[in-house]
């Protein structure tokens, strides 16, 4: 068999998967793109709304703000967790990782409702706060931005931990010992050695969490109680309830573009293939 024929053989092998992707993934996205330019009439009308329509702008700004806050909080919590895990004994590491990963196996829906039960006016947190006399009136902890952020951070922490942990594990612990041997206290050794060396992992985790947060649907829908709208829920509202296909698909296209742009920017800074786990 010559090389050319062999190569054609390989292409035939991946052809079913390739066709499946085109049929069920690429084609609908192209269609979404097409609808955004054709409904209700041909042209850039839907995209004009980005600059003219207050409610469209508000949704975008709310989404960006919530995603930014979520990313920062998930990074801070995740960094502390990763640091603890990376420096723990191997046996303890297994248990720590389990605790971080187990929530991932629980349905998003279940977790969102669990937060509602905890945070609502008669929920556990408010009951405890009022009975302990810390607050007089129950706090508004859910069906607002605060509730959304709590739920999203909870969901995102494992995704923040994994890339950071893998970059922290590559740091030779002897470097910290060396820094201390040279007269640096624990704090200085951390700031000048560990932190800069773990930074690639932090950036990777930040990109991952931010992109993930942009398209969040269930958690904001349940914990936002319909009052605080994020992009995904807004798209759903336009298409399913208001039957404004053009506006909904325009926003969906913007979401895809935003994600691709973020990835493109950061792929210049860091190795995306490593971030998503392929290659050595």
């Amino acid at each position: 068999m010559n090389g050319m024929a062999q190569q054609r053989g390989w292409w035939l092998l991946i052809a079913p998967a390739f066709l499946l992707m085109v049929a069920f993934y690429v084609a609908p996205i192209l269609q979404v793109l097409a609808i955004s330019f054709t409904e209700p009439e041909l042209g850039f009308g839907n995209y004009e709304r980005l600059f003219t329509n207050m409610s469209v702008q508000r949704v975008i700004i709310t989404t960006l703000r919530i995603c930014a806050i979520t990313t920062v909080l998930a990074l801070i919590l995740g960094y502390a967790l990763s640091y603890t895990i990376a420096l723990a004994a191997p046996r303890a590491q297994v248990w720590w990782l389990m605790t971080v990963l187990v929530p991932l196996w629980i349905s998003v829906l279940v977790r969102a409702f669990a937060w509602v039960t905890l945070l609502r006016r008669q929920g556990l947190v408010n009951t405890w706060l009022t009975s302990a006399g810390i607050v007089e009136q129950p706090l508004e902890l859910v069906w607002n931005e605060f509730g959304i952020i709590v739920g999203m951070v909870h969901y995102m922490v494992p995704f923040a931990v994994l890339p950071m942990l893998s970059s922290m594990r590559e740091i030779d612990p002897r470097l910290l010992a060396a820094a201390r041997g040279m007269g640096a206290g624990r704090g200085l050794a951390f700031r000048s050695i560990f932190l800069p060396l773990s930074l690639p992992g932090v950036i990777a985790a930040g990109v991952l969490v931010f992109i993930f947060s942009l398209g969040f649907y269930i958690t904001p829908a349940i914990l936002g109680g319909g009052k605080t709208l994020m992009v995904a829920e807004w798209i759903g509202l336009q298409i399913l309830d208001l039957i404004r296909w053009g506006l909904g698909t325009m926003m969906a296209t913007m979401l895809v573009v935003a994600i691709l742009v973020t990835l493109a920017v950061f792929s210049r800074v860091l190795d995306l293939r490593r971030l998503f786990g392929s290659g050595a």
Partner: protein
Amino acid sequence: MSTSGHALALDGLTKRYGSFTAVDNVSLRVESGEFLTLLGPSGSGKTTILMAVAGFVAPSAGTVLLDGRDITPLPPEKRDFGMVFQGYALFPHMNVAENVGFPLRVRGLSRADRDAKVRAALDLVQLGQFTDRLPKQLSGGQQQRVALARALVFDPNLLLLDEPLSALDKKLRAELQEELKALHQRVGRTFLNVTHDQEEALSLSDRIAILNHGKLIQAGAPAALYERPATRFVADFLGKSNFLSGTVSEASGAMMVVAAGATRITQALPEGAARPAPGASVLLSLRPEKIAVLGEQDSADNVVTGTIAGWSYLGAGYSLRVAVPDLGEIRAVLSAWRAPIAPRDGLAIRLGWSADAAVPVAEDAA
């Protein structure tokens, strides 16, 4: 750099991990300006001792004294010891100058003072032109020198070296051994080195401390340890040795006769050694290079005959394994230049050694 070293003393140093004793009651002095090597197989506790001196391991018992002052409770950053780690532990995100300047930055030196000292330290290890390189752009030998410069740049009380040459290939290792020795003489500081490489220990050190199973077995100058090993372990670990065991059949003056089966070995008593009573069992350590392959007419204090059981050619000479009745297999070396015999398997040869060639050693404590 000034030429003042500090003296270090370990007093009853012990480290236990659960029921395992890594370091067992080790007392040792390192004199000011001395190059002392802790030598032992892996698991002998040598690295644990070094880490206890550096402050990374808290001893279970005993003290570490610097110039007579107890420093056992001090954290590593307060000890002012330079350290070269195994694998060097260079900071990968800092260039050579930043790596070497790190200890000075920590100490709050001004930029100008720092630059001058970094340059001096890099010149000391002949790396002056590499200041802007990252560690990964350097060869193993260069990385090793950066680690040395970084450990010496802040005029430390003591320089600790953890297997400093183990990551290098053989030829480079020999080269850096000489450099390290010259560096020690130039800076005149106290060096405490850890290695499992006996050649490195012999060639570098003023004194060697041999450890096994966490215990200090023997300490002394390299030649003294090589010529007068106290125990079988020391004789075996430092260089190669044959062991001849037998019982004393007579002892008089500075001589004794040891019977090993039907073979009689004439053995001089080393200076200062107690004369054993007849009937006592003795173990003799006999270095291969002190055994001569005798020609027909040659004679020696001890002469045995045996047959060659195996041999290998090493360039400068032959290494022979000779089966000798009563004594078992004896290793001998034979210079290849004008060798009196051509080795081949099964050849009968005569071996001879003088009465002072072997030394009595103690069996190892269990």
